[in-house]
């Protein structure tokens, strides 16, 4: 029975088993299908009812004196003027779905009754609350027995030679008081505007006489809407929720029901079991996400909420839905793996639920932060797990342009985190102590006294370390760049490379030491043969020419973005200010040692057992390329990573790779900083599109080939020697 067939069998059974469970169906189908319509319709109705209620109710105005006193009469005068202009004003076009207009159907009183159906100005109902003093008015507003307080300095008059001073007292924290205040201000503004118009017309002045300016402000910010802000977070949370129940059911639930031992007694490798189960959890999480997305779109579309929910008349970009769902796939994989890893430690369903709660809280922090309107998909947020997915989904949902670089960074970083999480899930599930739910299962993973020494890091350890280092390194780089303005660029560059040994070597070394991994094995620090060293020397002196030619080819075929060209030019300017020794140490030696230690030693070394050679080299090269954060350099960095990976795999040591990397970086850097030393290279004015002369390329390719042959032969000797 093949791996694929076994996984298919397990997958099929688990899917049927889960889909027959009422709880899965409720979480996956019932909740999304009913949640959104109920949420949207319900909340909109609640808002409408509330605003209508506010509009319908008379505004209780606290003022000095009784209902027949001068202050009350002034207010009546104001209302009379308002009702007069309501009767004169033309009707406003009734907006479709304008559910928020509070007083469209509000009953009106007095002279306004006839104007209700015609006027753009909403009707006004007032009720007088007599007070003896201003303090009493304040007290009545505070104790909410009146909505607002109103004090006319003198009796209201519309004579052109006097200005009416009016004081409004209100409580901004009290919605009714705030609404009443807004209404009164609106009433006064409308009356004032009408009187202005009448006076201007009487004097036969043009409309521009009082209004020398007409300002039109256009908001160019991305359209921000309830849909754009809240929906991505809900989608992401529902994807997580979709993974929770199946993850618990097929790990802790299976253990609690006593079926785990049964399945482990079958001739099925644990890894097949994990893959089958993991795929089911991911499927259900994705199905949940798709149903949520579908349900919300259907609610918006059929409910006619498009204009109300998305601002500026923008609706959901239905064409983007497939892309949104595609982006949610690596995220669903990540969350499914995390949930499975966490739940695998639990012995019962209830225990698993307890373990899941802190994970959800941890997810809510970056997710909630990303949902804030001011948070943007750039800088550090590109690599913050969960947060980057919330932001990406938001940008896609509101139809904002998302650059390829941003899209790839989010997807690749999420894929990296997902790979680490899957490895953790596989390791956790495969542990004897976890499978049989020993009390010590959690301790045996983290308690150093229970950890057994090992010659090299596990794949899980390597992937988790890499996945943690990736955002940390990204943050550091962004921070260094952001401080460049305050200090000089060289200072930032120096600090970046000073941080490299700490992050790329010390951090994994500490982790390896804690989990009792032999440090020599952890970083593949074994010796290499003379042939391997000679091959490395040849490769190091020639690879930079090959890499340069590849970059030229890439630029010629695909062009070079202005941004990439500017960054390259800025870096070159910086390099010219550094001494040659500093250049070689900072950009040659430090990256060579640190990157080889992390990517080839720690990561590739961990893949030696259990991962095929080509896959392992490709994975380590891809991670190496992604860590460089420059899209334009991705192909060449990947190829260089693949070359160095092959050298390390073949020689079983990172040391020849360190030499290649050191020579490659040093020569390239020096060639950029000291063009006079490399006069045979085309000058920058001629453009980076120029190939080197054949007299340089041909020997370089010959050296490169000879280097590869020497390295390859050293492998044959190592294999012949029987060393592993």
């Amino acid at each position, binding site marked *: *029975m093949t791996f694929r067939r076994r996984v298919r069998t397990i997958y099929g*059974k688990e899917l049927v088993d889960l889909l027959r469970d009422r709880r899965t169906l409720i979480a996956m189908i019932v909740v999304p299908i009913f949640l959104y319509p109920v949420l949207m319709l319900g909340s909109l109705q609640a808002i409408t009812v509330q605003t209508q209620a506010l509009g319908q109710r008379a505004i209780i105005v606290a003022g000095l004196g009784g209902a027949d006193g001068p202050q009350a009469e002034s207010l009546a005068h104001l209302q009379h003027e308002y009702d007069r202009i309501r009767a004169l004003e033309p009707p406003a076009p009734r907006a479709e779905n304008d559910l928020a207009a509070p007083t469209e159907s509000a009953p009106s009183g007095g002279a306004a009754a006839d104007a209700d159906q015609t006027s753009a100005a909403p009707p006004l109902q007032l009720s007088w609350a007599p007070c003896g003093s201003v303090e009493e008015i304040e007290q009545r507003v505070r104790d909410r027995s009146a909505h607002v307080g109103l004090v006319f300095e003198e009796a209201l008059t519309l004579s052109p030679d006097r200005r009416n001073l009016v004081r409004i007292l209100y409580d901004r924290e009290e919605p009714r008081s705030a609404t009443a205040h807004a209404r009164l201000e609106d009433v006064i503004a409308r009356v004032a505007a009408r009187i202005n118009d009448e006076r201007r017309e009487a004097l036969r002045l043009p409309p521009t006489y009082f209004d020398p300016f007409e300002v039109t402000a256009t908001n160019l910010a991305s359209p921000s809407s309830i849909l754009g802000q809240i929906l991505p977070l809900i989608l992401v949370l529902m994807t997580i929720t979709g993974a929770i129940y199946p993850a618990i059911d097929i790990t802790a639930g299976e253990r609690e029901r006593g079926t785990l031992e049964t399945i482990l007694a*079958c*001739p099925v490798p644990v890894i097949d079991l994990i893959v089958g189960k993991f795929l089911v959890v991911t499927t259900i999480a994705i199905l949940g996400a798709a149903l949520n997305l579908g349900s919300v779109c259907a609610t918006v579309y059929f409910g006619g909420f498009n204009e109300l929910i998305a601002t500026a008349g923008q609706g959901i970009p239905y064409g983007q839905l497939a892309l949104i769902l595609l982006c949610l796939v690596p995220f669903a994989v990540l969350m499914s793996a995390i949930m499975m890893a966490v739940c695998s430690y639990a012995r019962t369903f209830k225990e698993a639920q307890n373990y899941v709660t802190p994970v959800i809280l941890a997810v809510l922090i970056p997710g909630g932060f990303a949902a804030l309107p001011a948070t943007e998909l750039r800088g550090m947020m590109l690599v913050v797990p969960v947060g980057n997915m919330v932001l990406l989904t938001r940008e896609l949902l509101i139809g904002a342009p998302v650059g390829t670089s941003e899209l790839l960074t989010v997807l690749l970083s999420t894929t990296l985190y997902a790979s680490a999480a899957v490895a953790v899930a596989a390791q956790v599930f495969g542990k004897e102590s976890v499978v049989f739910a020993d009390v010590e299962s959690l301790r045996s993973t983290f308690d150093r006294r*229970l950890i057994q020494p090992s010659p090299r890091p596990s794949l899980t350890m390597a992937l988790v370390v890499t996945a943690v280092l990736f955002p940390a390194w990204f943050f550091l780089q962004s921070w260094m760049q952001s401080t460049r303005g305050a200090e000089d660029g060289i200072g930032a560059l120096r600090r970046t490379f000073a941080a490299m040994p700490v992050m790329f070597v010390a951090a994994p070394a500490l982790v390896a030491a804690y989990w009792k991994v032999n440090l020599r094995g952890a970083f593949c620090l074994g010796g290499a043969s003379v042939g391997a060293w000679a091959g490395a020397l040849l490769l190091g002196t020639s690879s930079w020419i090959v890499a340069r030619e590849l970059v030229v080819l890439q630029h010629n075929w695909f062009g070079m973005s202005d941004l990439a060209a500017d960054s390259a030019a800025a870096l070159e300017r910086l390099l010219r200010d550094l001494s040659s020794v500093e250049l070689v140490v900072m950009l040659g030696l430090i990256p060579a040692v640190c990157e080889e230690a992390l990517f080839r030693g720690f990561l590739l070394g961990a893949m030696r057992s259990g991962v095929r050679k080509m896959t392992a080299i490709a994975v380590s090269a891809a991670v190496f390329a992604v860590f460089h954060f420059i899209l334009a350099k991705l192909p060449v960095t990947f190829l260089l990573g693949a070359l160095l990976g092959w050298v390390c795999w073949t020689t079983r040591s990172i040391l020849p790779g360190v030499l290649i990397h050191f020579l490659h970086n040093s020569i390239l850097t020096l060639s950029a900083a000291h063009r006079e030393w490399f006069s045979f290279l085309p000058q920058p004015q001629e453009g980076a599109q120029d190939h080197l002369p054949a007299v340089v390329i041909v020997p370089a390719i010959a050296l490169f080939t000879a280097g590869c042959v020497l390295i390859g032969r050293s492998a044959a000797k190592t294999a012949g020697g029987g060393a592993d």
Partner: protein
Amino acid sequence: MVVADNLVKSFPIAGGQKRAVDGLSFRVARGEIFGLLGPNGAGKTTTLRMLSGMILPTSGSARLAGYDVATQPFEVKRVLGFLTANTGLYLRLTPRELLQYFAELHGMDRPSARRRAEHLVDWLDMREFADIRCGSLSTGQRQRVNIGRVLVADPPVLVMDEPTLGLDVISNRLILDFIRRAGDEGKTILLSTHYLDEAEMLCDRIGFLHHGRLIAEGTLEELQQRTGLSRLSAIFLNLAAEGAESAAPAGAVS
């Protein structure tokens, strides 16, 4: 058919290792029913899990039907049926689906798995409830499904860990009849129990496990002769007292 040779299983604990099984050696011949007896914590379950290829021995070796449990766990699992009283069923699957699933996991293609499931449904008289989800079945019906699951690949070796623990009388009888019938059919059975009357009734040979060590082994008659006692419970208590005097407990931290 089953050979354990100086089998050791240690679990890491704070400050050292705890030996759950300590140098266990025994043999079970083809067609024999061998009872592994011992109190709770004696190491019976750990031994059976090692012999079933579910966990790796720390040292020593064991072979089942000629396959090494450490290096050939899948071959071992192919030739054994594993049953415990705690063994659960997938409650949302029907007996027919469940049997077919396990048959497929044992390497049968879908049509063969379907045929095997049908055969077992008939043979164990499950037709009446073969299409009802396991969650709605009685305990006795569930035990019948469990027996079907054990026999799905018609294994020559059966490993049973406390198969009657906590079962009601009817289910208990069902399992005991099954063991007897399997023994009559020539299957090799490794049975762990602390119900001594069951062992007395079913087993050809008995091994006493105490603190991870085999303190005595033989037929009932041999054990009676050695101790001069007739009842198995008395023999066990006598041997356990002897074992406690002669050996340090294997559960000690090393």
